[in-house]
């Protein structure tokens, strides 16, 4: 399950913390400290993921990203940045990154996003139209219908998209902000529990009349869809 991750980060403490955490998850992490080295190491396209600090000595993160994309390297990039405003995030995403995480962040949030990016890369082949099976839930992306244990479950369009996103990340933690970004395409932190209410409503529809819970709350991190608790 180990993946090859390039970490471009000039702050030693953050880098050591991330390297240790990602290594514990079984990933192989290579760490470089500045943008030029990062660009050099990344330019053969051999990594599964690049975690890129935005503010770096030498060449800054967005510069590295632009150079990589210009050279046709499509390795997924997760940008880390202390620049937290909505327009900074949009700028980062428009610059060609696949995800943008604001410092300070919890390791859980980073890990969830890293895993989602790695999974997205591996799933590029299984086409959008194929049926998704999670535990006893069956999702048909073409007809946008959902069945559990053979019984049809009626979902509103947003609930359906929420479920599909959770299902495409089966077994992995998905954070509230990831849901807001991916399902609603909003990049601000609402602060209140609007997302949680949507998830609990979806959970009611999925679990009413069934013994087995499938949509689990992971305390302090987010949600996970899967058979086992």
């Amino acid at each position, binding site marked *: 399950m180990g993946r090859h991750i390039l970490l471009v980060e000039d702050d030693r403490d953050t880098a050591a913390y991330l390297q240790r955490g990602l290594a514990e998850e079984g990933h192989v992490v290579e760490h470089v400290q500045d943008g030029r080295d990062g660009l050099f190491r990344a330019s053969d396209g051999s990594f599964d993921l690049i975690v890129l600090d935005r503010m770096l000595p030498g060449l800054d993160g967005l510069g590295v990203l632009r150079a990589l994309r210009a050279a046709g390297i499509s390795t997924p990039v997760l940008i880390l940045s202390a620049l937290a*405003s*909505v*327009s900074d995030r949009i700028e980062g995403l428009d610059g060609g990154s696949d995800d943008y995480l604001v410092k300070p962040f919890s390791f859980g949030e980073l890990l969830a996003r890293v895993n989602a990016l790695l999974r997205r890369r591996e799933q590029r082949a299984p086409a959008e139209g194929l049926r998704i099976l999670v535990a006893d839930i069956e999702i048909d992306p073409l007809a946008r219908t959902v069945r559990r244990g053979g019984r049809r479950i009626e979902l509103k369009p947003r609930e359906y998209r929420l479920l599909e996103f959770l299902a495409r990340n089966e077994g992995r933690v998905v954070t509230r902000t990831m849901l807001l970004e991916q399902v609603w395409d909003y990049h601000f932190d609402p602060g209140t529990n609007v997302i949680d209410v949507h998830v609990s409503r979806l959970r009611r529809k999925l679990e009413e009349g069934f013994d087995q819970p499938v949509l689990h709350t992971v305390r302090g991190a987010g949600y996970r869809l899967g058979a086992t608790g």
Partner: protein
Amino acid sequence: MRASITLRVALLAATLAFAASLAVIGFIFWRTHGDDAEALRRQVVEQAAALADVYATGGAAALDDAVDDSDSNGDSLYFAGILRADGRPVSGNLLAVEAGPPRAGYRTGEVRLRGRDGAVEAGFVAHRAPHGLWLVSGHGFGERLSFQATVERSLLIAVALSILLGLLCGLLVARYVGRRVDAIAVVADRIAGGDLSHRVAVSGSGDAFDALGLQINAMLDRIALLMGELRMLTDCLAHDLRSPVGRLRARAEAAARASEEERDGLLAGVLQEADALMRILATVLEIGRSEAMTARSQFASLSPAELVEELAEMYEPTAEELGVRLTAETSPPPPPLDGHRQLLAQALSNLLDNALAYGAGGGEVLVFARPEQGALRLGVEDRGQGIPPEEQAEARRRFGRLDSSRSTSGAGLGLALAEAVAHLHRGELVLEDNGPGLRASLVLPALTERKAWGGGVRPG
């Protein structure tokens, strides 16, 4: 630096004044100066040569005859005489040369003639004669030449005077300019020293210095206002962050003292407080960025109706849990808007948060996009208690609180952010009585009107 500029101003003024006088002087000189003086010189030199011959052949007697001849011809200004080296006359009608003992060559100056009172201005030539004597002959200036000579002398004096006047003028201008510039510079120095209360004194004459002073004063007023706001913001930030930081600290302390089993739960609380704190900071940052107008580059055309419907859909489950009926009003459909979708959504979500938190008692919340004459209204209405007019300013102040018992982290920032987003879109945040309840709306200039500013509207 300042001194050298004053000096330059002084020199320039002096030069200009001098040049102006010189132009007048030059003009007068050009108009009055003729070639009379040159003609006189030629005549005198020729006569002198002739007289020298007469004297050489006929002596003093022949010379006297020659002088008498010209006298009888009516030319009383003609003179010739023999002088000793010390200037005393020996013969002829020339009594004395005022300019001193004779010297060789053509000269002009005053001479005294026999039969004439006073000195006469004349051009004359002295020739060395035998026995240490001098033959001096010449011709007095006519009226015209005398006038010319007087004018030229006067002009020379005028040149000297104009240099003096120019310098005086330069000094005066320099002192005046220096004083006005200094008055402004002193204020600038004091401002640089940190005292923002000083202002440039304005003389009231409405001249360029006054205009400059007024502009500087306006700039200083604006800076002082911004500084005041900034100071208030930092004060409020420091003050309002105390309580969440305090709670964070208390929870961390409790976690440190707790038993193994309890610790996990307490640590989760610590993380929660830390997240809340980060949210406050993120919002403050967002307000600052919006007010700085940097996000305008990310403006794009968007549908206000879609935005409002998305947010209504997003908040519908939350409203339902609170027992509130949340509806979206998007008809008649407003025209597209050029704006920042993310920030507008965040502003609306803040207004919705507020409406649900403080207006839920009314049981109804409406989120709307209404086209108006030349404007678009995006906002939220509730049927709760509303905000009394006297407390509305407090409500939109960053960290303003209507109810000090409110414990929601970051409360009060929401309206400030909505206002900043409205400003970013060249609009305003308007709080109104909804009778009962509160209507909070972002009133934004319509797309067509904004296009018209850029001249993009074709005449129909």
